């Protein structure tokens, strides 16, 4: 049963057979396999985050008529590896007026919340840790824990900038949760399932025109509102008031250094990849596509959306707090709910193929 979820990875198939031969019984078999999978996913996520940080710096550089990192290797390809090693050796400077427990656990929770979403993200045909039947609902529930960690970081630091950043981020993420859920619900109306694998499979076939983004107009509107809300959820510019450098210096992570800061940073980029992966699964057909292997399709689509988010970052100016909240509640929420109802009506009328 587990094997079905990871059948494409030969190593895990071999290991499963070995463990069965050793006479391991079912709950412990799952424990071992899932434990190994969690370490594998952690490694993959670290690689993804290192690549994304480098890529973001290169894109920022090239969009501003400069080169970005160039010193370490070809076009600075191992710059971020060096940064990670440096952060590992950095002294952990801790404020003496901090709230000890809250300050310590905030980066842990931030990272674990970002990490847990990868249980249900299908990287390819069969490349999924566990195909939970509540898939997308689980992702929404888990990624919201990031808010708690940002609030904890803001409160635990006992720093005014950090506290303001944490409060702002809580208000923002909570507000943009509503339009994000509504645009995801549009897809669920189309597909009739919460499982990520089923959602991907229902977009199969017909070259690429079965993707939910190609269901005009409501699929496209849902995609655009999802991308907007996801940008805000991942705390990216133009919605990055929680860490607005010019006002709050660095926002909630101002008092963090060394590995604790690295965990926040890692979680931020992992979150960006998560929202892109979800957009891929929900709107762009997941791993389905002609010719190329499934995992390659998934990576290409996800990186295309990441590229979009990066171009957003270096194109748009930052919104003010009040503009941000008004945009969420007075524009996105009515739009997404109207879109949901009309999409339901279209589906009922049978106007989609």
């Amino acid at each position, binding site marked *: 049963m587990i094997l079905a979820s990871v059948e494409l990875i030969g190593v895990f198939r071999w290991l499963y057979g070995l463990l069965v031969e050793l006479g391991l019984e079912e709950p412990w078999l799952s424990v071992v396999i899932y434990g190994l999978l969690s370490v594998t996913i952690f490694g993959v996520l670290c690689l993804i985050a290192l690549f994304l940080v480098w890529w973001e710096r290169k894109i920022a550089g090239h969009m501003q008529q400069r080169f970005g990192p160039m010193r370490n290797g070809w076009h600075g390809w191992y710059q971020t590896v060096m940064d990670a090693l440096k952060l590992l050796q950095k002294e952990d400077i801790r404020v003496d007026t901090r709230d000890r427990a809250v300050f310590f656990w905030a980066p842990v929770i931030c*990272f674990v919340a970002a990490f847990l979403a990868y249980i249900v993200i299908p990287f390819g045909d069969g490349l999924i840790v566990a195909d939970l039947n509540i898939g997308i609902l689980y992702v929404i529930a888990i990624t919201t824990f990031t808010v708690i960690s940002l609030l904890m970081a803001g409160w635990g630091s006992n720093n*005014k900038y950090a506290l303001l950043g944490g409060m702002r981020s809580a208000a923002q993420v909570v507000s943009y949760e*509503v339009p994000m859920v509504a645009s995801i619900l549009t897809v669920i109306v189309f597909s*009739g399932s919460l499982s990520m694998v089923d959602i991907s499979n229902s977009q199969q076939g017909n070259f690429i025109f079965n993707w939910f983004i190609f269901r005009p107009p409501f699929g496209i509107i849902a995609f655009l509102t999802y991308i907007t809300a996801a940008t805000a959820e991942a705390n990216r510019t133009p919605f990055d008031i929680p860490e607005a450098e010019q006002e709050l210096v660095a926002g909630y992570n101002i008092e963090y250094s060394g590995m*604790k800061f690295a965990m926040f940073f890692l979680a931020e980029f992992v979150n960006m990849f998560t929202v892109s992966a979800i957009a891929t699964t929900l709107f762009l057909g997941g791993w389905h596509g002609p010719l190329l292997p499934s995992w390659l399709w998934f990576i290409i689509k996800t990186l295309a959306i990441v590229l979009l988010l990066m171009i957003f970052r270096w194109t748009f100016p930052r919104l003010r707090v009040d503009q941000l909240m008004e945009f969420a509640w007075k524009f996105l*929420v009515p739009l997404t709910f109207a879109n949901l*109802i009309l999409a339901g009506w279209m*589906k*009922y009328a049978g106007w989609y193929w």
Partner: protein
Amino acid sequence: MLEYLAIIIFIVAGIGIVLFTFCFSRLIRPANPYPEKTINYECAEIPQGHSWIQFNNRFYIFGLIFVIFDVEAVFLFPWAVAFGQLGLYALIEMVIFITILFYGIYYAWRKGALQWV
């Protein structure tokens, strides 16, 4: 149901990995705290007082509206999943439900609750 074991294992493994990196970095990093270093960062000024004070974070109204919408999402998820089988009746019901909800948003809007300042 065994698939849900993955969640517990990933929680444990995630916390374990993070704590491991903290411990590993503790082995190789310097530790030399002194009072000037452990003071709060406030752009090189000496911080005036705690930040744990009462302040108007203008946030609780948004929190309240969010709770309403989140509870609504709990009803919407099963509706969206089963919509294919339920048909027109469910659609009309959900239109009525969302209309009532949006009357609430309209009320909050008119009262100025969606105004951040």
